[in-house]
């Protein structure tokens, strides 16, 4: 991981309130993996002071080389407002890649991915990286959920060979009506899975974790926490595991991907 000045290649609305940003990075991301994140400084002023963490949506490649990264963000506060105003050619300081990654074992043949709202990026990156996998999968389903169709971001990105896409919205404005977890349950009742990987709001992740646990399916989740540094110095992003009361883990260095069955929800 390194700190570097990157150049904005594009910054396009991906859905109402969501932006997809490409950043040219001179170096550092050749070995970046799905689940890893970056810390982005949104300006140079004292407010907002801290960097903002973003999971990688994907890598930009030129031939064999990784020349940049993509992130996806929802405008929620001052930092993301600033980012939304960035234009092609602007410079942004980026630290990364940080944290761990999803780990899909070679033996996994039936993979389920779940993305809720702004949790799409690492799941999209993971789905893409799975295309290069030798042997492929016998079953691969991506569940994407949002409150309304306006919260379904980048879903066309999941139109990948061998992947089945299942979309849900709370209000039924697109895909199945209801929570993404209901579709997930139906699918698991219909057939088994070797692994579930998920990212999204905490409530959704907890529900996915419970569903997986009931069926004895391994489950990895990428979680969020307030953090100042992203590199294990501030100790702000503490998270508790069920099986270890003696200390907290930290989302930035021990995560952001955790074994869902170990987290104390």
């Amino acid at each position, binding site marked *: *991981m*390194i*700190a570097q000045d990157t150049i904005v290649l594009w910054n396009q609305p991906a859905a109402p309130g969501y932006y997809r940003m490409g950043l040219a990075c001179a170096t550092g991301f050749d070995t970046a993996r799905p689940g890893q994140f970056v810390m982005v*400084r949104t300006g140079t002023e*004292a*407010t*907002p*002071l*801290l*960097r903002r963490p973003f999971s990688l949506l994907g890598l930009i490649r030129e031939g064999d080389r990784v020349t940049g990264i993509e992130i996806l963000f929802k405008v929620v506060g001052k930092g993301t407002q600033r980012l939304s105003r960035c234009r092609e050619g602007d410079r942004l*300081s980026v*630290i990364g890649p940080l944290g761990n990654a999803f780990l899909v074992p070679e033996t996994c043949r039936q993979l389920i991915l779940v993305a809720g709202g702004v949790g799409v990026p690492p799941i999209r990156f993971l789905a893409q990286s799975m295309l290069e996998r030798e042997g492929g999968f016998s079953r691969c389903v991506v569940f994407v959920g949002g409150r309304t169709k306006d919260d379904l971001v980048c879903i066309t990105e999941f139109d990948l060979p061998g992947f089945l896409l299942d979309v849900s919205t709370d209000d039924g404005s697109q895909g199945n009506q209801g929570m993404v977890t209901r579709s997930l349950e139906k699918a698991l009742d219909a057939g088994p899975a070797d692994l579930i990987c998920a990212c999204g709001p905490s409530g959704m992740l907890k529900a996915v974790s419970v569903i997986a646990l009931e069926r004895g399916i391994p489950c990895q989740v990428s979680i969020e*926490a*307030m*953090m*100042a*540094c992203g*590199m*294990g*110095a*501030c*100790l*702000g*992003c*503490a*998270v508790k595991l069920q099986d270890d009361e*003696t*200390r*907290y883990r930290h989302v930035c260095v021990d995560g952001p991907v955790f074994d869902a069955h170990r987290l104390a929800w």
Partner: protein
Amino acid sequence: MTIPDMTVDIGGLKLQNPVMTASGTFGYAREFEHYIDLNRLGGIIVKGLSLEPSKGNLPPRIVETDCGMLNAIGLENVGIDAFIQDKLPFLKTLCPPTIANIYGKTVEEYAMLAERMEPFDAVKGLEVNISCPNVKEGGVAFGSDPKLARDVVKAVREKTTKHLMVKLSPNVTDIALMARVAADAGADALSLINTITGMAVDLSTRRPKLANVTGGLSGPAIKPVALRMVWQAVQAVKIPIVGVGGIMNATDALEFMMVGATAIQVGTANFVNPGSTMAIIDGMQAWLQKEGLNDVKQLIGTLVTN
């Protein structure tokens, strides 16, 4: 042009330059090895250590505020034994002196920490934290009660031959009094300020933004308070003062030295830019050259007030 002499002496401990890392913002240094040349630092002050490992406060522990941030980490740390076994071997390989920040819940605990650290030559100094606002026992009580503060500093002084720096709390009425108490009790230097107690509220949920309710404010927001307190401490005691509080760049660092600090610590800036310390060292040197000063010590306490 000649490179200015950047060395300073903070009461018996020589630093190759005045730029140190503030406790709790720099881990145990290794966290930053990919980002900066650790050997260029003036000094490394590690995360506050207690006798036993401490898991710290419930999350959420951090929230951003205008021009700053609040934290209530609660002094999560690996404990002194794990520090000595797992962290010190790496720190030992570095040129800058390692200063161990210590905190206890009782006077005896502070003394035991000092005693335990005494045989390890790789630890060049102790910074006694009597000012953390986020731990229920000890911490701020020692930092705001002159008698308790004196007892702690005296107890540590009796147990250590190392450089002894006392980190003062800004959450007091009379910083000059606390500075005098710590100096009289045997401190070699004082560092100030620690974070200022603060609070943030989420109107929509009607809850405090920190699980601990209150936290310590740091960052650019607290620099004016820190400058004022350093200024007052400098008038009050003869021992060197190490300035801390909202130092984000070389200008900030130079201001603290002009006010009378002999050295400075960089804290929150490490989170924002892991390379901040390097930029500050370079920037200070460049400014001195521009001003035609060949020694950073020529700047200390040169504030013109008449």
